């Protein structure tokens, strides 16, 4: 992994932008309409919104797993479009492969092998604290550990952009807080850009440098919040008055967005 890139030195140049992006599915559902948003290089961006508003769709569009039915996505850094890591809501591991081989998958698919690949895997596993479990199989791991394997797999290619779709939604609060802290630490250390989908106000305020709030379907941006807090945010940010105030502000905005319909 690249050496520590302190968040202070991060510029806010745009990495990618959605221009009037719409997504209509063949069954007639319009998930997104005239969506405009910019992703800044190096930021931790949360997409927050009610269920079904098109957050996952926006993420899949960004990853190139589906294409917009109208509008376009502009990449400032073309290479970032090809260096994406994706973490799904479920761990989505291959049950027939050991932890190590699950993490190895992206490298194998990109044709990387040998010593260099082994080093990357060692690093990624160490980052998520699973070095001892490299030979275990997914069914032998707890839910939180599986999620960490999934994160290691996304990190192993050293992506410029990490997309996460409600990765911790199915976890208990204790594991979620732990993984939140781990993720903050990783982001501080790796200097990658993260786009994080969630429908938890508290999680998004704790994690992000910026929050984009979606309206109910068809999703558009309803509000934007910058979260400025001293780095690194340790557990005590969670109990600070600033955190509480920000959560109240975002919750109120969410309530009014939901009330508008």
């Amino acid at each position, binding site marked *: 992994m690249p050496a520590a890139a302190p968040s202070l030195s991060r510029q806010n140049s745009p990495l990618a932008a959605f221009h009037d992006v719409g997504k209509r599915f063949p069954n007639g559902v319009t998930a997104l309409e005239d969506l405009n948003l910019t992703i800044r290089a190096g930021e931790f961006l949360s997409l927050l919104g009610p269920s079904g508003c098109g957050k996952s769709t926006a993420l899949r569009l960004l990853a*190139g797993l589906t294409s917009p039915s109208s509008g376009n996505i502009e990449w400032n850094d073309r290479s970032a479009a090809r260096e994406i890591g*994706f973490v799904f809501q479920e761990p*989505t591991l*291959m049950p*027939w492969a050991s932890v190590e081989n699950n993490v190895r998958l992206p490298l194998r*698919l990109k044709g990387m092998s040998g010593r260099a690949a082994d080093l990357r895997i060692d690093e990624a596993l160490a980052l998520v604290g699973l070095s001892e479990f490299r030979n275990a199989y997914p069914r032998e791991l707890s839910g939180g550990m599986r999620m960490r394997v999934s994160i290691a797999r996304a990190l192993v290619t050293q992506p410029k952009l990490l997309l996460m779709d409600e990765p911790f939604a199915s976890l208990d609060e204790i594991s979620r807080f732990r993984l939140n802290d781990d993720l903050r630490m990783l982001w501080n250390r790796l200097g990658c850009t993260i786009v994080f989908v969630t429908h938890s106000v508290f999680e998004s305020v704790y994690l992000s440098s910026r929050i984009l709030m979606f309206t109910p379907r068809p999703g558009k941006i309803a509000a934007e919040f910058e979260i400025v807090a001293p780095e690194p945010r340790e557990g005590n940010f969670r109990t600070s008055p600033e955190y509480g105030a920000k959560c109240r502000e975002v919750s109120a905005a969410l309530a009014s967005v939901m009330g508008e319909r």
Partner: protein
Amino acid sequence: MEKNAPAESRLAYFILPLLALAAAIGLWQLAVSAFALPHYVLPSPKLVLDTLIADRALLANSLLVTLKTTALALIIATIAGVLLAILLASSRFAEYTLFPFAVILQVTPLIAIAPILLIYLEPNTAVLVCACIVAFFPVLSNTVLGLTSIDRNLSDLFTLYGANSLKTLLWLRIPSALPYFLGGLRIAGGLALIGAVAAEIAAGVAGRGSGLAYRIVESSYRLNVPRMFAALLLISLAGIAIFALLNVLQYLVLRRWHESTLRADQ
């Protein structure tokens, strides 16, 4: 963890069926002697065993023929079924053109196909083809289902990292299909034996053949009921052996990772 309970239940797991089986055989023996049933009506277990020993050369030979046919049929059906499944799963065109034939072969009762095949083919070959036909379908349909039951997110992941269709087949579709395929194989193993036996009976009626089922037909013409039972016993044992073998295979392949091989105390 309790130590005694699982050991006890494991003991019961093995002992109970054996006891039940022994009791049934004992009852059978008792009934034959109590009602003084003649051996051409119902031979006693003892007589069946004696016949098995006396006719061992003949029966062993027939057993070997049946087992060989079954094994060969299973191997051919597996290879053909898997290859066709890969073809069907990767091309809609192939699926629409070929699947109807597979279904027709599956739904037409084998016992009706066998006499027709016997006209064109040598008896041994005809029996083999029949066994192949019945064993083929479960392998095919299960494998197709497995190859197409892919976790959507995993498949997205392969797309994200630019995997071509060969890599996706080898590293995603085939491993995903493995449990389905093995389930199909287990069914196919039993069906291959049934197919071989049914076709042999058809061949036996035509007076040609050498497998266990042929022995049954032949013995029935000669009213040699004990030998019929002896041959039947061997067919059952062959069926049990095939079933056990394929179960072991499934366990060995899936034991490390699949949920089906998780034991309660793990």
